[in-house]
């Protein structure tokens, strides 16, 4: 099976709002692809469509050439970090991983491996409701890595992590890409993205604004943040109004 994530004319509407509008792109293996866009740009909807959680209104999303819902062993093929809340508060970290390992016929010793990998061995028997945001984020990463998949989609992976954790996840993503895996990462943190991503996909209002190598996107002497804000200046749905002053 291939290791490309492909969206072809992907369109998703919610009522009268078009969240994703005729989006076409490929995500290639061997590099970290940053997925950028303002709030409401359609990043999460795109990710949900790729993962078979949302049914597109038009177009399609393929994982290694196959629609997610047709994958035989999805967790062994693609791992996903969704927002850290997607665990049952009443499950222990180990039970959460055990349930998913059982569904995917993944050997039980892999659970201990990923728990050790993300540094959660000591809290494996605690209910997830008692874990900090950073620990939940690590559990999410353990979940994504459970099936040792060649493709990974990580939605806001550094959310809630401390500086040590941020450096750890950055190194992890670079290592995973260097191993030849496909890594798609969404984030709003431009400085972090500048350190991690090789390639960028930028969307705004559901449309593709840029599909470009990091080196080509950021001209010498400027920052990723400048380049990004220039590009998305016309595609921001939610913006604070310029200050009118406090006097009447």
């Amino acid at each position, binding site marked *: 099976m291939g290791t490309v994530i492909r969206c072809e004319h992907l369109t998703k509407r919610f009522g009268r709002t078009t969240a994703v509008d005729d989006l076409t792109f490929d995500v290639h293996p061997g590099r970290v692809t940053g997925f950028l866009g303002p709030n409401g740009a359609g990043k999460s909807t795109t990710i949900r469509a790729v993962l078979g*959680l949302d049914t597109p209104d038009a177009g399609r999303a393929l994982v290694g050439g196959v629609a997610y819902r047709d994958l035989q062993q999805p967790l062994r093929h693609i791992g996903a970090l*969704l927002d850290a809340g997607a665990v*049952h508060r009443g499950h222990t970290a180990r039970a959460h991983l055990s349930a998913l390992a059982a*569904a995917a016929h993944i050997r039980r010793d892999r659970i201990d491996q990923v728990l050790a990998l993300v540094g959660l061995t000591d809290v494996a028997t605690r209910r997830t409701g008692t874990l900090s945001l950073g620990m939940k984020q690590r559990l999410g990463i353990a979940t994504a890595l459970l099936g040792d998949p060649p493709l990974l989609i990580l939605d806001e992976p550094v959310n809630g992590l401390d500086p040590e954790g941020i450096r750890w996840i950055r190194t992890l993503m670079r290592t995973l890409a260097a191993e030849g895996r496909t890594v798609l990462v969404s984030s709003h943190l431009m400085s972090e993205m500048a350190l991690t991503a090789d390639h960028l996909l930028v969307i705004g209002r559901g449309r593709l604004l840029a599909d470009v190598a990091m080196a080509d996107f950021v001209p010498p002497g400027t920052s990723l943040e400048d380049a990004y804000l220039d590009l998305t200046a016309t595609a921001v749905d939610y913006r604070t109004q310029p200050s009118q002053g406090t006097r009447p």
Partner: protein
Amino acid sequence: MPTALSGAVASEIVKLRSLRSTWLTAAFAMAFGLALSIADVSHIASSWPRMAAADRAQFDPVGDSLSGFSFAVLAFGVLGVLAVSSEYTTGLIRFTLLATPRRGVAYTAKTLVVGSFALLLGQLAAFGSFFIGQAFLAKQHLQVSLTDPGVFRAVFCAGLYLFAVTMVGYGLGAVLRHTAGAIASLFALVYLGYGAAKAVEGWSYLPSKLMLSNAADTLAQIQPHPPRPERVPSLTFALLDLALYLTLAGVLGAWRFTRDA
């Protein structure tokens, strides 16, 4: 052979077993039902010698030994609701569907696991409460045996009723995806529906015959003798009631579950 369904079933077993709320709700349902049933039969046994003939005629050695579960049944329904609604309220459903992307397979696995647990728990409650109740009734020689006519049927059907209400809760949880809303609807269906159906009895007894609680009166007693016999369905009708509720819960739940989460 490892298949998507066998994996999904194993996954659902881990999820149900690992939740403290599963065991707390099950323990509460059992304890509440048993305690009320014991209170009922021990009162009957102790007051039997001075009981009026009219009251004695109302006595049902099976139905009375299970009477607590007409209230505890709600806890069974809550168990069914939580088994599915908590996945939506916590967001876990997304990982469930990532692991088992074919919705039909995921729903089948969950229904099989929750259903088997509910059936086991329901029969455990019915037979447990029956045997404990008979021990109390034996003091006045009022007890019956499982081999007496109609007794096994009544106890087994009582377990079926508890199973059915659990699955109605499960179906409501799947349809509404919201714990409080599903529990409120369950309460309305099981308890308020009884009153609503009674209100229209001037026109028709059919709504009353369709009520789960009236079906339970027929199913879980040897000789039902309710104050208003018209209200209570026949044994066949009552079994059809259960089948109807189980089918509706299963089909509506499946319809909603296979829609985007």
